[in-house]
């Protein structure tokens, strides 16, 4: 009696059945951070519990600061990062909002913090439930945003995040996002990398010039302060670094594949896109379900594909345009809202590139808000509507898939509050 978990594993790596949160915690451990600041919040709590255990068991040699709130968590890791340390923290929803000023300051200081954000609805309507609204509410903070589809991608992205954040040519904080509940609590098979491989993958950073850091007693301003031209210079450099991070992420993904045997395609993943006439654009856990439905639709002769966004900030417009150009119709699935716009946030952003798509038509789907499930039937409905659009039929621009009562948001309807 000694059955081992069987799955294709790279020699030496360990196959485990773990949750998304455990994958994030192990990913952080493997990156060997110097300082971790920890404050729990549903659905992220398990990350903090796991890291606390690793720390208590002596498996993780870091300074673990159990802070009194998320604002302190971000300030602690920002400061430690500016002092030259490798840092990690994790949060979600209300926690992310409570650290918002520090999130902006961290980006402004170009402190290479890596943080996991387990996606959950934001304050506004109290809902302990999944949704990408917290991610959307911080998208202009100046961080690099990566989004994972499954538990394997969570562990892999946490490790890769350090190669982006700490790269001498980038030095921008990175947030790794994954869906609360649907991924945070999902137990599935994960190939856990061996420490030596992670060390090897991250070793490149040690060969780079040392980044500017605060030294006690040393006379050095670290972090950004400027007005007029000084401010413009810092902001321009920040925007430029984010643009550079696109190519860096492509490159990093290739190097990751060489060492770990898993590659994801870089900024976006294209699934059955080559001969696709219609495409769904999505991100996060919904993509697994969409792939399943695409296979079914393909068997029935429908030429449909998926474009999965892996890097959301900076917005990978160039590769998206290249992949989507000439497709007959595109349905963009948003798990959040873009107040002031009828369509979802990612739809609204992609719309800016519509003229480069050679006539592709676009529609917006809003689904998965507040834990509503992006079901197989919902995905089928979205694909069917996008096919209708491709055939020139009259299709609504915006569909709240799980809320049929909502016609296209309209000032004439649903009067009063």
């Amino acid at each position, binding site marked *: 009696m000694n059955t081992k978990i069987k799955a294709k594993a790279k020699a030496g790596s360990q196959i485990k059945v773990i949750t998304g949160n455990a994958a994030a915690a192990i990913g952080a451990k493997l990156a060997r951070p110097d300082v971790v600041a920890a404050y729990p919040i549903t659905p992220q709590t398990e990350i903090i519990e796991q890291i606390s255990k690793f720390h208590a068991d002596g498996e993780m040699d870091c300074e673990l600061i159990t802070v009194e709130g998320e604002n302190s968590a971000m300030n602690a890791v920002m400061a430690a990062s500016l002092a030259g340390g490798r840092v990690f923290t994790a949060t979600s929803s209300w926690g992310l909002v409570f650290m918002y000023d520090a999130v902006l300051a961290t980006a402004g200081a170009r402190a290479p913090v890596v943080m996991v954000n387990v996606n959950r609805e934001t304050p506004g309507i109290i809902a302990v439930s999944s949704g990408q609204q917290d991610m959307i509410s911080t998208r202009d903070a100046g961080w690099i945003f990566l989004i994972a589809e499954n538990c394997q991608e969570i562990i892999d992205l946490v490790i890769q995040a350090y190669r982006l954040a700490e790269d001498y040519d980038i030095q921008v904080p990175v947030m790794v996002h994954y869906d609360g*509940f649907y991924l945070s609590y999902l137990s599935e098979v994960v190939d856990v990398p061996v420490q030596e491989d992670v060390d090897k993958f991250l070793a490149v950073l040690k060969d780079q010039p040392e980044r500017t850091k605060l030294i006690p007693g040393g006379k050095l301003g670290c972090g950004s302060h400027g007005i007029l031209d000084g401010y413009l210079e810092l902001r321009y450099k920040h925007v430029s670094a984010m643009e550079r991070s696109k190519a860096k992420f492509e490159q990093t993904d290739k190097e990751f594949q060489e060492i770990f045997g898993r590659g994801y395609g870089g900024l976006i993943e294209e699934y059955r896109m080559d001969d696709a006439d219609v495409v769904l654009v999505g991100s996060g856990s919904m993509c697994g379900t969409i792939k399943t439905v695409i296979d079914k639709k393909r068997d029935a002769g429908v030429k449909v594909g998926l474009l999965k966004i892996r890097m959301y900030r900076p917005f990978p417009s160039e590769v998206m345009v290249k992949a989507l150009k000439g497709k007959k119709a595109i349905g963009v699935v948003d798990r959040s809202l873009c107040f002031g716009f009828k369509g979802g946030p990612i739809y609204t952003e992609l719309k800016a590139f519509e003229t480069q798509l050679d006539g592709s038509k676009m529609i917006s789907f809003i689904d998965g808000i507040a834990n509503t499930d992006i079901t197989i039937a919902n995905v089928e409905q979205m694909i069917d509507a996008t096919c209708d659009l491709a055939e020139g039929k009259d299709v609504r621009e915006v569909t709240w898939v799980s809320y049929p009562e909502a016609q296209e948001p309209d000032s004439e309807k649903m009067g009063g509050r």
Partner: protein
Amino acid sequence: MSEVRFHGRGGQGVVTTSKILANAFARTGQFGASFPMFGFERRGAPVTAFGRFSDKSVREKTQIYNPDILVVLDPSQRSSEAVFQGLLPGGMMLLNDSDNTINVSHDNLKKLGIIDANKIALEEIGLPIPNTVIVGAFAKMSGLLEIDPCCDALQDYFSGKKLSANIVCAKRGFEEVELFDL
């Protein structure tokens, strides 16, 4: 692929049951994926969990609406409409109950397993937490798993005396579950 839906209450180990089974499937070279759905984490609140077990990797990240198998850890939910919702023809149900008379029925329910998992758990671990007994009983009823990978999977969740006591729980679940063809 088998799709399994678990019904119970916070504190009964519903989530752990689904995790251990996913782990056990992975030990047979198959794939398992499970996740719970609940609002606030608290004891006594209804908890539903979903398990997908397959020889291919599981990509779907959606809840289960048409289960092949139901696992009910909380006997008070035995006749709940919500429990039977969407059960596929030829369906199975595993019920944790001290009463082993067949008093559940559904057109699509063809196989019923009943086990007094709370009693066994009290005897072996001293707590009325039925989850590991249910793991063993599930293996027997479903015919999808041997008992060995289930016991081995427990190593990832328990250690020391608790591990050996829970292995006994799983084995007793496997041996003592009463099966009925409906």
